[in-house]
């Protein structure tokens, strides 16, 4: 395939991935990797390197808006970044030595899990019980503005959330994705944060987490400009447009259809991985 044709195909695919990823909340990375590996036969190591770059671009772009609104809890973000960056570096180092087929199988499993998570109805676990001694020591309790009113919240089970973030960071480094689904579990279900705070704070953390593993990938030659350029340009454009549409679109049906497509892609990746062993 010529460079020009390859670039155009990836650009279009990445645009779609970014658009759908932001509309459904799955993220662009989890779609672009199956696209590159299954449809274009790109080695998963290159696909992961390109995807992690697009994760940095999209998360930094949207974090910029959220941070200005004051919803993001910067202390929680930075505290948990210790866990995610340690995990990300370890994951990225392991990924280099791991056979591409094992990565594909693991990726497929996480993809199915993420798809299920986007469909699950969210249950509000928020609490005002600010007695957690870790949360008080690290000053994690806070409040967020919504329609001019300040909503206070308290944080629980800090060590549990920290451990879950270590795991989320490892998967992010291993697979080149933002692993937003896992981060939200850690923050919503374990630490009891309000959705708005957890989604924006997880977004805020993604950039640093991805940068930590991207540094490792860059030195291992996994970030190839020929793939990374169309991927990050396409995903960022798609995600930016997606976030504009999101404000006025109903996404329930789209989420459903998309989850089915993603599970289908995931099964194909698992199948390909197993048959390649």
């Amino acid at each position, binding site marked *: *395939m*010529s*460079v*020009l044709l390859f670039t155009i195909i990836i650009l279009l695919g990445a645009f779609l991935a970014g658009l759908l990823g932001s509309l459904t909340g799955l993220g662009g990375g989890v779609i672009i990797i199956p696209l590159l590996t299954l449809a*274009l*036969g*790109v*080695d998963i*190591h*290159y696909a992961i390197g390109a995807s992690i*770059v697009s994760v*940095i*671009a999209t998360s*930094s*772009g949207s*974090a*910029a*808006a959220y*941070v*200005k609104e*004051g919803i*993001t809890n*910067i202390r929680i973000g*930075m*505290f948990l*970044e*210790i866990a995610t*960056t*340690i995990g990300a*570096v370890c994951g*990225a*180092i392991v990924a280099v030595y791991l056979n*591409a087929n094992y990565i594909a199988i693991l990726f497929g499993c996480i993809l199915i899990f993420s798809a299920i998570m986007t469909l699950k109805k969210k249950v509000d676990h928020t609490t005002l019980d600010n007695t957690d001694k870790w949360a008080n020591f*690290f*000053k994690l309790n806070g409040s967020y503005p919504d329609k001019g009113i300040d909503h206070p919240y308290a944080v629980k089970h800090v060590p549990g959330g920290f451990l879950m973030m270590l795991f989320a960071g490892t998967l992010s480094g291993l697979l080149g994705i933002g692993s937003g689904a896992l981060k939200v579990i850690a923050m919503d279900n374990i630490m009891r944060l309000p959705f708005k705070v957890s989604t924006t704070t997880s977004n805020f953390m993604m*950039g*640093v987490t*991805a*940068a*930590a*593993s*991207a*540094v*490792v990938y*860059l*030195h*291992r*030659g*996994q*970030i*190839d*400009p*020929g*793939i*990374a*350029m*169309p991927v*990050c*340009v396409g995903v*960022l454009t798609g995600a930016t447009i997606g976030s504009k549409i999101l404000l006025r679109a109903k996404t329930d049906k789209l989420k459903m259809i998309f989850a089915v497509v993603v599970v289908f892609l995931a099964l194909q990746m698992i199948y390909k991985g197993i048959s390649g062993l």
Partner: protein
Amino acid sequence: MSTIGKENLNDKDIQVILGTLLRAGVIISMSIVLIGGAIFLIHNSWTITDYKVFKPELSKFSSILAIFKGVSTFQGDAIVQFGILMLIFTPIARIVFAIFSFLIERDYLYVLIGFIILAIITISLNGGLAH
């Protein structure tokens, strides 16, 4: 009461600066990627690509030094890689800024946390360079 008001204002300022920093980082680095991409495509459009097998030994720009050398001779793919490097450093710059702002707030616990994160990234940077 007045000190609380002051602190809130401070927090708000920091949030606005942080947001602007992130946005500027993304816009600048993506512009560099686009310029590099255009130069790359002008020279290499009809070259045949193959990414079927991961060959790290063929990677031309896997160190910061190699990227700078490539940029100095206006190679398109090197400029793309430089833009990507800038993008990687955007969230890292955000940590550095956060350290400063917590220092101004005299929240030394979070200054320490910021340094821990920077240390982890620096260790991984050096670990990568060693290979």
